[in-house]
């Protein structure tokens, strides 16, 4: 099966989104870095193979997997039930809170302030699906999905968007990074925490099992906290368990 194939081939090819700091981005030499990149490397080390990072925009994660371009996805992928019909997801390896980031020039101070404004998010993400639903519910305003997280913040910074919803980590990184002037975080988005999973082909139980254990080990050994500290900052890493239910 896939697990054997990976070990036999000697490389693990991970789909990683590289315009999603701090989870994935590029350093000044344009090499991939970030939480997900390290996570993939750890997984490869555990398997005893070499890691190969395949840059994949959000909308292309599943096609990339399906077309066999990658073996697994370490790509901040929310574990929705709809998606689980098509792909196999592991237990969560990270959990995002989502924040509302706005352009300075708007008067938005709470998430409800987005009502009637032009808002956007990265096409194909959890928060985009939520936000688009929200705009529909409000019945006013406009929703625009962009192809990459960078395009979203670029548009926000240019004033083409009034507000966006993104994971708090990404929002913090972009606001602090200083590359996008004129934006600020104003509120949390009232969403269920966005649990994200590793994924692979639906029928690859062996690999899914292996990755479940791997995630468990990352937490147990303290590597999870270490990566959190390295990429996100001080404080408690997000809790990966849900009160009152298994898994």
């Amino acid at each position, binding site marked *: 099966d896939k697990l054997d194939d990976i070990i036999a081939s000697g490389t693990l090819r991970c789909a990683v989104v*590289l315009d999603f700091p701090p989870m994935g981005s590029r350093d000044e030499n344009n090499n991939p870095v970030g939480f997900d990149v390290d996570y993939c490397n750890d997984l490869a080390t555990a398997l005893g193979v070499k890691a190969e990072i395949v840059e994949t925009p959000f909308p292309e994660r599943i096609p990339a997997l399906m*077309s*066999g371009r990658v073996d697994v996805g370490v790509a901040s992928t929310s574990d929705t039930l709809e998606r689980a019909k098509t792909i196999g997801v592991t237990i969560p390896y990270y959990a995002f809170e989502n924040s509302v980031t706005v352009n300075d020039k708007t008067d938005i101070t709470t998430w409800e302030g987005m009502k009637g404004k032009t808002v956007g998010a990265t096409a194909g993400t959890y928060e985009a699906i939520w936000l688009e639903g929200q705009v529909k519910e409000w019945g006013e305003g406009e929703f625009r999905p962009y192809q990459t997280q960078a395009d979203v913040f670029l548009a926000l910074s240019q004033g083409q968007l009034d507000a966006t919803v993104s994971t708090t980590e990404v929002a913090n990184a972009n606001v602090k990074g200083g590359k996008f002037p004129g934006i600020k975080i104003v509120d949390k988005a009232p969403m269920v925490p966005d649990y994200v999973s590793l994924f692979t082909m639906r029928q690859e139980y062996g690999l899914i099992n292996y990755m479940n254990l791997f995630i468990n080990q990352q937490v147990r050994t303290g590597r999870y906290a270490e990566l959190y500290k390295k990429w996100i900052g001080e404080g408690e890493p997000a809790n990966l368990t849900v009160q009152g239910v298994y898994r």
Partner: protein
Amino acid sequence: MFDTALTSTDLIFLAKGAGMTLLVTAISVVIGTILGIIFGVIRYQIGPIWAAPLTFVLDICRSIPLLIQLVLLNAFFGMVVGLRWPGLTVACIVLSLYTSAYCAEIVRGGIEAVPATTRRAARSLGMTWGQDMRQIVLPLATRVALPSWIGLALGVMKDSALVYVVQVTELLKSTQILITRLQEPLFLLLICGAFYFIISYPLARFGGYLEKRWSND
């Protein structure tokens, strides 16, 4: 004029993207042209009715957005057939077919532009079909077809900007990656546009020149 954070590594990174653009273009144009010649000759030779299935397939290649062709073929090979092909391969397959569809038309036009009597003269000197094709039709049809072919090759280069969807980092994608990091959209886009322009414009002009020259005599 521009105060930029662009470093020399970034320029190398862009150059790599440009190299990928040229590589994809070169492979697709070469394969597409060979296929296009074969398809064009077949279509000319067996007549429109028998060639209908081929015409239909080639027509499809021209009637569906390249983006969809790329996504679809990618999904087909990967999901349905289960082949682990790199994105570059899929990109080249799609672009080659796309090229061949247009090239077949150009080739057919070129062959039809060779007067039947000239070919008759060749055959009546005892030349075989192959000799006639090689010695008479090829050189004459080339004159008619070359300018359009140059246009086609440049079109393929420009359309190769779309292969980013199958994870091939070509020039425009490299530019977008740098825009992500450096936040200088206008400046980077201008560099990128200038690159395409510098390659495309002189060749397009050359094609126009050939057309003018050869249509005169």
